[in-house]
């Protein structure tokens, strides 16, 4: 009889853990190679956490979308639009509560439109969200004629940007809250099971009485709303709303999710993996900057990582 322990080892394949192993390697490499540049200082590690917060938050939600076998390319643009609407609400003097509601609602509405088009009109999510990526960014540019909107509200900036609570950056706190919610939602609730079932075999899920259309609508609303939150955090951190926020974030977010072991084909998802994946991307970006690479070179590295992640994360479907 196989013992519990050997069962455990048998069930874990190295693929599931490659992201952790890779992360350790990357971290050690930068720690040694960039020790003079200050990679391993507390200040730099905190700044990695801050820089990564928005990606992580969107990636947690994206884990759900990809788990259902769909994709959301519009998160970066949604973040930009939410940052604008939030900043404008604050500028209009309507107060922080209104601003938060408006910011989240912006994301919610975009997510709901995506979700309805995918689940009810049955347009492939790739197309819907590709279009929404343009529309969202376009509106963000258009509402102020590309002008940035400064934020002067101190409480907002503290809660959604540069504040520290008990020495912990608020951005990190937001990240942890969303990651925990995402983890519980995916692993401990019926909704999580239904999400994975929808992505695993939509027909079987449907015949089991799962409202797959509603599940899909919900996960798009989740990414939309989380992209809204990410946009609000961008606005808080940089004390303004700018249409340029979140440009290219969809690539980082999707890479983080795939690195974390979530299957592009749907049906398999891991929130913890996603968090590690996105911290790894943040670490790599940070390391590359310290090494003196510029944005264009970072883009190249990120693209290559995505392809590697998809290649190694691919499961053979033969058995």
């Amino acid at each position, binding site marked *: 009889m196989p013992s519990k322990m050997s069962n455990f080892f*048998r069930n874990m394949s190295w693929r599931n853990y490659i992201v952790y192993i890779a992360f350790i390697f990357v971290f050690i490499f930068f720690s040694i190679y960039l020790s003079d540049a200050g990679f391993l200082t507390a200040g730099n590690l905190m700044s990695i956490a801050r820089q990564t917060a928005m990606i992580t938050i969107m990636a947690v939600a994206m884990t759900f979308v990809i788990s259902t076998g769909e994709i959301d390319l519009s998160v970066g643009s949604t973040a930009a639009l939410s940052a604008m609407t939030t900043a404008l609400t604050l500028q209009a003097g309507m107060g922080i509560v209104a601003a938060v509601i408006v910011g989240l609602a912006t994301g919610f509405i975009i997510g709901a439109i995506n979700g309805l088009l995918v689940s009810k009109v049955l347009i492939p999510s790739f197309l819907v969200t590709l279009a929404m990526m343009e529309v969202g960014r376009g509106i963000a540019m258009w509402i102020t004629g590309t002008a940035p909107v400064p934020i002067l509200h101190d409480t907002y900036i503290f809660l959604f940007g540069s504040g520290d609570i008990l020495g912990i950056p608020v951005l990190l706190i937001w990240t942890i809250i969303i990651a925990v919610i995402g983890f519980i939602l995916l692993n401990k609730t*019926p909704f999580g099971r*239904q999400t994975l*079932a929808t992505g695993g*075999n939509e027909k*079987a899920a449907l*015949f*089991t009485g*799962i409202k797959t259309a509603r599940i899909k609508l919900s996960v798009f609303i989740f990414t939309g709303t989380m992209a809204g939150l990410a946009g609000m955090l961008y606005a808080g951190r940089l004390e303004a709303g700018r249409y340029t926020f979140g440009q290219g974030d969809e690539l980082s977010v999707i890479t983080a999710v795939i690195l974390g072991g979530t299957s592009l084909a749907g049906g398999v998802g891991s929130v913890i993996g996603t968090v590690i994946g996105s911290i790894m991307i943040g670490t790599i970006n940070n390391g590359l900057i310290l090494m003196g690479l510029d944005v264009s070179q970072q883009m190249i590295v990120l693209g290559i990582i995505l392809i590697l992640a998809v290649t190694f994360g691919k499961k053979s479907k033969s058995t």
Partner: protein
Amino acid sequence: MSQIALQMKGINKAFSGVKVLKKVNFEVGKGETHALMGGNGAGKSTLMKILTGVYTLDSGEIIIDGKSVEINNPNDSNQAGVAMIFQEFSLIPKLTVAQNIYLNREPRTNLGFIDDSKMNAETQRLLDELDLHIKATDLVEDISVGYWQMTEIVKAISNNAKIVIMDEPTSTLSLKETEKLFDMIDNLRKKGITIIYISHRMDEIFKVCDRITILRDGENVITERLSELTMDDVVQHIIGGKLKRTFVWEPREVDYTKPPLLEVRNLQSGDKVKNVSFDLYRGEILGFAGLMGSGRSETVRALFGIDKIRQGTVCIDGKEIVVNNPMDAMKLGLALVPEDRREQGLILEHSVKENMILPILKKVSNKFFVQERKVSEVVKDYIQRLNIKTDNEDKIISLLSGGNQQKVVLSKWLANSPDILILDEPTSGVDIGAKSEILKVIRELADQGKSVIVISSEITELLAVSDRLIIYHQGTIANSIPRENLKAEEDVEIAIQNV
């Protein structure tokens, strides 16, 4: 048996440490039709997958036509003259029979173009030789599904296969088609083709096979001429003990004076269901008998909200109901175990546990969370009751043997304990021991006052559980016969054929 076509000697195979085949010996004579039997998870498919190069053996030897061969991939196996007829058909519907048979190895003219006339002539010659009444130029989508499998077999033979493996070939065939297949097997035998025949159906094995090899838990039990064995012997060797006689009908009390639970009137759906009316009473087990394609599956699909109901009414407890999708149906207390388990019943990359609890998530959750303790209880219970062979409840379902996957689909819905349970071919691919267990569970449910509809192509099974049989004929109901008025299987067969 003069010559030996295939010998597999001392085959060992383990999956991540779990031994699935233990020193298995398997020997088949030339031109023989050899049955390979055993309970679900005994290792039949694994042994054949080794022969066809899907898996490689850990140790052992394969000898074909006297020569030791190494089979590391499907190509090696083809080269050695072995072909497997797959359940999921690999034909392309929009191409003709001949085009499918010669796909990717079409005969060429001198100019290098495809030589259609030669291809069609060759194909037709083979079809005629095997007495198959289809034309080489027919589109595959136009011939009946029963012929698809035969086309696959012809394809294998035209590709010089000497050993043809059929894994549960009749599970998708009607009675008539099954007979056609048996005729074809006879013809193949005359041509000297060796056939390995895997099935859980006793009567078939005795009808078409010469010898039998039985495996139990990955080990040889016996290899013997079938003429030396009785059905009881075979059953005993498969399960390693005596079977309780659950295939015998036990009369049950159904109260037919109370109004029916489900009333279906003049139901029309798709082009298969033309005019179906029947009643289902509380605590009743109703068997649907009929030919493949007579509209039985389509009726229940419509009732469960998968297909649209074009006309007719459905009432539950006297109230007319509207069902637009499976969710509506489930709310009204219906459940359907679908025919095609891989496509419609399972999420293949998820675990046994996750699949099983999917319809009962609400029942095993409190307000917010899934309660693992409750989940485990339910799952353990069904693994034990239906004797599901799995290393543990977290095993990925696609790694279970075919029959065990079917048992998981069943438990999924049994656990949901619906008021009206509809089972479409519930025991297809399930071994004899589990079959009787499934029939027992069905009876238990009915005894609790639940109503059950059973569709099955196995008449023995229908006769064993049904309180009443409904005979389908081309989308309408030809007859409704109380079980006690039926003496033997022949009565049902006559009722099905002569309407």
